[in-house]
């Protein structure tokens, strides 16, 4: 009995002492004081030294895109370091290309700030804010795709360009132990500032999409940050080719809303690819756009319709439609949104058809 008590006592004292020692060390050795961060040579913020750059920036309400929440597994939170910050860490190698390394690009979630540091980030990121909207409606578009309305509380307003995306936070829920952010393009009009619509498809084993499809209900409060992204509507006189599949319709819808608000008369062809009849959605909305916009045409294309005789639209892949429709040369620009594989094959066709690469805008998602 005595031995058990001594063991317990000595071992507790021992581990307690070590815990004390480590806490003390973190307070003294691991304490770097307050560090200054200079952003784009003009803005200066102060943050707790020893913390990661990402957490320091988030604290100052500067939101760098990050899907994994700072674990170094998504590679989105890149910033360019002008001075300070030490050498690149082995945990960053996989996400930084050699050219980026030359320019000083680092992952802000891995970089611990231990000296004054100067960084540069895209100017638009200053416009990124955190919002706490409420879910006001959820509708099923297809068996796997939901259309969700988020309404902002009084005082919160979003300003974005048609085509940009926001990040939605998936909290912990039964079966998911980590908080993650996932990017979704805004489907609503940029003229609406107190509401956004997202189109979210169910990804097998996807953390955020499972949350949205199985756990989110009307009345829930969520956290989103945004807007992000350099895929947005460009004003010009060129003819527009739009291509999307599945949830890729979201940014295109936003662009169409914008064009409608501007009474645009640009000739616009929207190719929408799907497999079966039930994968098509928003056909009514597209009819409305066709009557509201002077020269807009919606071209749905099914690769495997259940009932070929009844299907009146295009048959086959979007690439074949493009090959056929873009015969006569013309000044064009293109907006593509879909999987990397689909985008790569379509970019190839468009370049072949004489659209300069700099006029092909796309948003790849996997």
């Amino acid at each position, binding site marked *: 009995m005595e031995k058990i008590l001594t*063991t317990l006592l000595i*071992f507790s004292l021992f581990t307690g002492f070590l815990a004390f020692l480590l806490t003390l060390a973190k307070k003294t*050795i691991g304490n770097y004081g307050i560090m200054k961060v200079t952003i784009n040579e003009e803005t200066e913020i102060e943050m707790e030294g020893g913390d990661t750059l990402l957490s320091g920036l988030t604290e100052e309400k500067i939101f760098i895109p990050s899907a994994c929440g700072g674990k170094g597994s998504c590679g989105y939170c890149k910033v360019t370091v002008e001075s300070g910050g*030490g050498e690149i860490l082995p945990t960053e190698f996989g996400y930084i290309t050699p050219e980026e390394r030359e320019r000083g690009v680092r992952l802000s979630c891995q970089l611990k700030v231990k000296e004054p540091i100067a960084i540069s980030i895209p100017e638009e990121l200053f416009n990124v804010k955190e919002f706490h909207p409420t879910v006001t409606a959820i509708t099923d578009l297809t068996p796997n795709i939901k259309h969700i309305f988020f309404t902002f509380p009084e005082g919160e307003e979003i300003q974005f360009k048609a085509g940009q995306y926001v990040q939605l936070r998936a909290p912990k829920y039964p079966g998911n132990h980590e908080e993650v952010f996932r990017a979704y393009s805004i489907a609503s009009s940029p003229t609406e500032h107190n509401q956004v619509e997202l189109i979210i498809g169910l990804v097998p084993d996807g953390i955020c999409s499972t949350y949205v499809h199985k756990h989110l209900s009307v009345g829930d409060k969520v956290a989103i940050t945004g807007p992000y992204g350099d895929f947005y509507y460009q004003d010009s006189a060129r003819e527009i080719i739009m291509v999307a599949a599945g949830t890729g319709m979201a940014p295109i819808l936003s662009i169409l809303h914008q064009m409608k608000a501007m009474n645009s008369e640009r000739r616009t062809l929207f190719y929408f690819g799907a497999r079966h009849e039930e994968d098509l959605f928003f056909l009514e909305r597209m009819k409305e756009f066709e009557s509201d916009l002077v020269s807009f045409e919606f071209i749905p294309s099914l690769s495997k319709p259940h009932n070929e005789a009844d299907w009146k639209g295009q048959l086959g892949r979007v690439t074949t439609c493009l090959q056929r429709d873009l015969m006569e040369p013309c000044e064009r620009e293109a907006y593509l949104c879909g999987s990397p594989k689909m985008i790569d094959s379509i970019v190839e066709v468009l370049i072949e058809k004489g659209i300069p690469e700099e006029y092909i805008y796309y948003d790849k998602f996997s």
Partner: protein
Amino acid sequence: MTFNPLVVFFAAIFTNNMIFSNFLGMCSFIAVSSDIKTSIGLGQAVTFVLAITSPINYLLYYYVLVPFGLEYLRYIVFIVSIAAFVQLVEMIVERSFPSLYHSLGIFLPLITVNCAILGVSLFMTIRNYNLVTSTLYGLGSGLGWMLAIVALAGIKKRMKMDAVPEGLQGPGITLIITGIMALAFIGFSGIVQIS
């Protein structure tokens, strides 16, 4: 029986090499031996941690565990103290020697669980070394481990172009090489006696 600390130091490198005579610390030995530079980094980190943890564990054992008759606790106490002190050392190195931290940084937390580290602490208590001998034994074992992994990395580099049978590629051929190296190291045995 007392031991000459210097003899123990050299014995730990050559005749009683952690890898070739005890086969301890094999996991990282096999996994991180593909590049000479990296294996030097890991070897340095192991040496560093061994040289620090063996005197600490010596003091813990003889001034805390033995007086209370708790020798049987040494396994768990050694592991906890190794883990804690590696953390502490990591913080100090990160603060004071950034370039050293940069080359050792990712290895330090890894070798907390390297069984060669625990092995050294246990051997020194089993063999009744004194404080100086234990420290030199720790340092020597670390250098021996580094010698072994760097030698293996060198051999692996020369073998890159060789046609190794498919089933033996990777860890298989590595274990065979290690066995042959261990045979070569038997040549040193009998020179000194340390236990």
